[in-house]
């Protein structure tokens, strides 16, 4: 029983990171029909940007700030202007394929210009354990969980309580009508790309100390985020959050109770079941079929 509690906390911590990545993924899909197959690599890159700044001699806090700014510039603005904008009018598929190529390019670039080996990455949460109700819990798990939850709450408040958030939702639901009632649709779409860039940079900051910085680390993470987004609901931010937490917990429980060899299969089986029986996701609303 006590073991189960540890697993749950660790699962929620990784799940919260998955949720951050999955939320960005669904935001891009909602506002600009972009299926970003490079989302995992988007999480991998900011850690290397921060490491590069640190190698230049900057302290960690400055590297984090510069890393996030660079991510906003490259993964937000650059991604939208250079790849998404020219391709969007050609439909979903060519853009999805282009993001696959982007993923390969990013992995290879990091491998070539940085290192093929895994590099350690400093944690923003101090190492150590605390005891809560007589249980020893790692400070890192708690810190990750707290930060991720804070960001998710902040994002939900932004989307539901502010004028900008309402304009973004209007853009996502019906860009044409949104434009008619005076929503600056283009600016809102750009904003979602920037939010996505911020979320992946943050996820990178939280997850890299746990799994080390490696050029290929985006593959697993990207897949987890896809699964989280679909399980929760492709078209709902809260769906992506729920999906992320669920996948994190399921993943950790599977590691403990299913054979380590088939641990990775459990979330996939969950994905297939959800798609077959509730394709809109646990919290999603059905999308009309486009004919």
């Amino acid at each position, binding site marked *: 029983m006590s073991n189960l509690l540890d697993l749950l906390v660790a699962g929620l911590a990784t799940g919260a990171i998955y949720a951050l990545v999955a939320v960005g993924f669904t935001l891009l899909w909602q506002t600009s029909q972009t299926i970003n197959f490079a989302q995992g690599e988007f999480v991998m890159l900011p850690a290397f940007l921060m490491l590069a700044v640190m190698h230049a001699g900057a302290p960690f806090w400055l590297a984090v700030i510069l890393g996030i700014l660079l991510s906003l510039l490259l993964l937000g603005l650059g991604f939208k202007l250079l790849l998404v904008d020219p391709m969007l009018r050609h439909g979903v598929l060519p853009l999805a394929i282009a993001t696959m*190529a982007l993923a390969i390019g990013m992995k*290879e670039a990091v*491998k070539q210009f940085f290192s093929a080996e895994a590099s350690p990455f400093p944690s923003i949460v101090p190492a150590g354990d605390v005891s809560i109700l007589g249980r020893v819990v790692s400070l890192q798990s708690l810190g990750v969980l707290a930060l991720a939850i804070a960001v998710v709450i902040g994002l939900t408040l932004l989307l539901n309580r502010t004028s900008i958030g309402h304009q973004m939702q209007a853009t996502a639901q019906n860009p044409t009508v949104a434009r008619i009632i005076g929503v600056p649709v283009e600016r809102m779409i750009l904003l979602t790309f920037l939010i996505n860039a911020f979320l992946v940079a943050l996820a990178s900051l939280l997850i890299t100390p746990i799994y080390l910085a490696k050029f290929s680390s985006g*593959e697993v993470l990207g897949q987890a985020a896809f699964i989280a987004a679909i399980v929760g609901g492709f078209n709902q931010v809260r769906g992506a959050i729920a999906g992320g937490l669920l996948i994190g917990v399921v993943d950790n429980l599977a590691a403990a109770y299913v054979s380590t060899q088939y641990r990775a299969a459990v979330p*996939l089986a969950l994905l297939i079941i959800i798609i077959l029986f509730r394709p809109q996701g646990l919290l999603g609303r059905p999308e009309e079929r486009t004919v």
Partner: protein
Amino acid sequence: MSATAKYWRIALGVAVIAALIIAPMNFNRYGLYILSQWAVMTIAAMGLNLTLGYAGQVSLAQGAFVGIGAYAAAIMTTQGMPLIAALGVAVVMCFAIGWILGYPALRVQHHYLAFVTLAFSTLAFLVFRNEDWLTKGIYGISNIPRPNVLGFATNRPLPFYYFCLGSLGIVSLAMWWLIRSPWGRAFVALRENPVRALSLGIDTRRYTLMAFAIGSALGGVAGTLYAPLTQYIDPVPFNLSLSLDLLMMVIVGGSGFFFGPFLGAMIAVLLPEWLRFTEGYYLMLYAVAVMLLLIYSPTGILGILDRYLSERRTKAASALRAVAKSRLETAP
């Protein structure tokens, strides 16, 4: 198409086939290996082109079907069974699995199907890696024999290349026939407008599953050639990135064009070899080239050609019209 254009096309086709037969005769072992690999990947990409380009279903599992075919060939031929038996098993298995995997396609939109197939691809990889008793796990299966075809041994690289090329030829002819048959037209109708296809009396359910299953079976065919080509297989080549590579081949060549997979596989297999002088940068350059191509022409390389040809045709037609018009005006 005018008669001369038709002759030109036939002449070009004959020249290419002749070049594929004659040119490799004095290639070295590695060159033949690469060309054989091109033929094998083209077969797999053709299957995906049927699923994606003609029937409009996105599959991220073609690499897994190549894997199933390769393992069927490796396990059966190392036990002394002939390759043709393995081919039969691979085709039936891939067809059946593809059929079952196609069911979600009936229920959900295309990007969901992409994720179902992505999940299947990863599951297949886990089975290849973990089921040691069957696949020998990460150690892989070595000493896979090459077959005797019509009494000829194909142990040496050149005969084996001809075997691959011949298989590609047979598959191409079958595919050529298929997409011109009523089935092929039904597949296209399905891609262009599923609701209209349904209202015209096409059983869209059956044809969606059929396109998926046939495409997957061709992945299996490619796999049964892949195993004797490399003579050693382990799970690594059949992970998700093979599926992604195959998808990129189809899109880069031009999905929905008959010759798209030939061109796409050529670029994916040969371009890295040509870019070898750039050392570690070649995959990066390949990725950038794919992105630039897709930005310029989302319908791939054959899309550019198609656009150019149809522009020329329009120009020729309007020139004819102008001549006809001026004749009409000068006529009394």
